[in-house]
């Protein structure tokens, strides 16, 4: 069982987290092409090695960014997503 580190709560076991998608999969505007929308909606990075992802810490409800290695499964501490105050 992996240990992830929520930027607000600290290290917690993996079942407390939900995957939230690739970091940087920005939502295109309403007038984007069908291809751009499909890219956003369906295509995932699925890298071998370093992955930048969004995770949700369910008990505190906060989304955060986390860098993870999909080969070694090493996970860096999560980073708060600097939303506006």
């Amino acid at each position, binding site marked *: *069982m*992996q*240990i992830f580190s929520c930027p607000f709560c600290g290290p917690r076991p993996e079942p407390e987290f*939900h995957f*939230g998608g690739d970091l940087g999969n920005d939502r*295109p*505007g*309403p007038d*984007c092409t*069908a291809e751009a*929308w499909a890219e956003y*909606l369906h295509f995932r990075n699925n890298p071998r090695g370093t992955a930048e992802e969004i995770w*949700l810490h369910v008990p505190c*409800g*906060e*989304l955060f960014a986390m860098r993870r290695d999909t080969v*070694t*499964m090493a*996970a860096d501490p999560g980073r708060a*997503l600097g*939303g*506006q*105050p």
Partner: protein
Amino acid sequence: MTARRLPQGGEIDRSRPLSFTFDGRPVQGFHGDTLASALLASGERILGRSFKYRRPRGLWGAGTEEPNVYADVTDGSRFRPNLRVTLEPARDGLALRSANTSPSARADRTGFLDLFARFLPSAFYYKTFFRPNWHFYEPAIRRMAGLGRINTAAHPAPDGDQLNHHCDAVVVGAGPVGIVAALALARAGESVVLADDGSRIGGSLLFRAARIDGQAGADWLAGAEAELARLGVTVLPRTTAFGVYDHGVIALNQRRDDGPDRLWRVRPRRIVLAAGAIERPLPFDANDLPGVMSAQAALSYLRRQAVLPGQRIVIATNNSSTDEVAAAMAAAGAGVTVIDARKGQQVARALGRREVTGVVLEDGTRIGCDCVLVSGGFAATIHLHAQAKGRLHWDDRRLSFVPEAPLPGLVTVGAAAGHFSLAEAFAALPAALGLAGAPVAETAPYDVTPVWPRPEQKGRVWIDLQHDVTAKDVELAARENMVSVEHLKRYTTLGMATDQGKTSNLAGLALMGQLTGRSIPEVGTTTYRPPFAPVPYTSLAGLRGGPRMNPVRRLACDGRHRAEGACFGDYGGWLRPAHYGTDESAILAEAKMARASVGLFDASPLGKIEVIGPDAATFLDFIHYNTVSTLKPGHCRYGFILAESGVVYDDGVLVRLDDHRFVVSCSSAHVAGVHGLLEEWRQDRFPAARIAIHDATAETATLTVSGPKARETLAAAGINADLSDAAFPHMTVRWHGHGEGALRLTRVSFTGDRSYEVSVRQDLAPALWDRLVAAARDQGGGPIGIEALMILRAEKGFIVIGKDTDGMTRPMDLGVSGPLAAKKVDFLGRRSLHTQEAQRADRNQLVGLVPADGLGPLPVGAHGIDLSAATPRSIGYVTSSHPGAAVGHPIALGLIERGATRHGQEITLHHLGKRRRATICPPCFLDPKGERLHA
């Protein structure tokens, strides 16, 4: 009957005899026996039947590697299938049933299968059992295949037991090397867990001679045990380390006599793998006969339980480890002949039908015997290293895969690292563990010469005993181009099943290498995955079973519903009244009552998520398909939330309490999902200080009063707000009372009749229920369950998301296309609604369906079919079906291709081989103009 118990020696206590049964026959043993040693001493040779050909099989090993002999064990009220008899201590009163046998190992009815073996090669069943289809054969094959049989009459298995543990080091394997490692770490102040799958610690010291630091092995072990206790090392015998998982978790399964197995989930800083090595068989014809067994296992039975496995013993070997075995067997009184491949002698064939009676050497010499002890060299137990993604190196001198290099946090030592002599293993310890020194052992060096199965070798050379794979099967796989090691495994099942090829893998790889001109490391190994040895499901599940898996949620008025005689059901995790009274006929009666006078319904699980803040309206405009910001305070609006795919995710009524405060009411089963969706988009796109989201579902109870007498019921219950249509019109919200007991009245309808949702702090709900139910009864009404509500809403054509919609349903398919054309701002799923797929004309659309054949309600799930083509084609299906309450005929809703354009058409429905006829109509059977809402 050639094995026998020696009159003295071993670790058994002859003053404590015991007895258990095996296939119904009594077996005598002593305290200190394993089930296997007692069975061996009893002279019973045939202890199981092979998996595929039902050949008689006896014991091969003495530990976790045993491929042949498993038993289902009943111990009073406790039943455990598939126990490895080599690891279980013998106990008085156990009842064992052999695996793969019918009725018993000795007299198996299916033994004839072996006569047909030449017609049952590898992959036979892939090539045979597909006509007409696999399911035709499956029941019979499933009955014969598999190992143990569950005793369904036995008490259910007790809940498993689990522990989480943190420590500095876990040492896997408590042989001499593991013990030395544990002692060294503990002396340095580390907290250490020392686990071993044997009944006691000591490993090879329990049956092999050794001198350590000048002491006899047994004396050294006694001293070491005392020091382990003194240093506080957690010593876990009968505990198998079966898996290394991500982030350094190691899982141990501890077998206990006084309770269920216990799962240890340990997070050490370091894992020391001292798991030893497993002896391999040698390839010769009929090397699977009962009486052919591992030489090390035989030595263990002799020294630990004083069982001599035969009187005239042939030892077939390719290495130096059998020197001690030969001497020990001879000293115990057996006649011993050693056939040593290092001296150019090899066994070609074992003789005997039900057990071994002799061997024929490659040079044709015949030797009569009653037992063949085999050593084909050792394979390091590197499973946990490999599970942790450690790379392997083929050691051509020791003929074993060994860890290429230690992993961060996992170091392999001893025989598991290929150091098959104790002296060599100790000498390598200081470097591996960073120690200043290690004990010195005096042992002979290990010397081995390769003996592998050869292509075209005569006879039936068994490679995998547990899954009945022979050298010929590997040759067949090579001929059919299944040469990759993963293909070889799947095609022949080599290395599968509960022993995971512990004894067989290398022989298979070596033969495949010869057949394809590759070396063993070029062939490579299959992926190692947990578990190393079988683990009971109870252990893995722990306490997460039954009602603890998903604790049921109870309504605030639960006691009131029970008092009313409610029949409960699980609806989206909530225990809710399906109807009142035990008889399902109450459902229609309740629906009719609600149409005639008034029904009181507990709608508390309905989602009530509050969205608060100056940007709340902008935020909800983005979340909802419908425009929210134009809604006036005090008003309600029905709408959809879409997924980004454009599919309808949820529906519900949105209430605007004031400029900056909304209540999103979502489907009962969708609250967590909608809450998560709201949070995700708030955090992604909106300023944190300007929107707050609070799920008030659990703290707020909601009671719905619906029917022509709803207004009178509220008034009679003392809710004397101005309930006139002018003061409190449909789709508005009002407050009654102040402070903590305030009621929030929402005039919305999920029935088509005048309805009020009354929401109150949940602890105040039972008192409110009492007032409302009394008032409803005075009006000729009463409580209704969720099943009656389902009829009422279907009559009006109100949908339930996920029931009347599926993973393709867009809002336009439900007849709601206005916002897509009119809404000015972007919203969730918008772009998806403009795709070609979303705009197709032949989409399934929501319709009403009325039976046209007078045969009663339509079955839910019945498919509409288009019979115009050669083969019938589905044109959608029935999603909801009910008898009518206010409507005088059965009604149904469905998703039908181009449904909105087909009103009035009759279609054919197909369900479980039967045909029905139905007429398509608009999805509203009652009061399409909405007059009842104001009645």
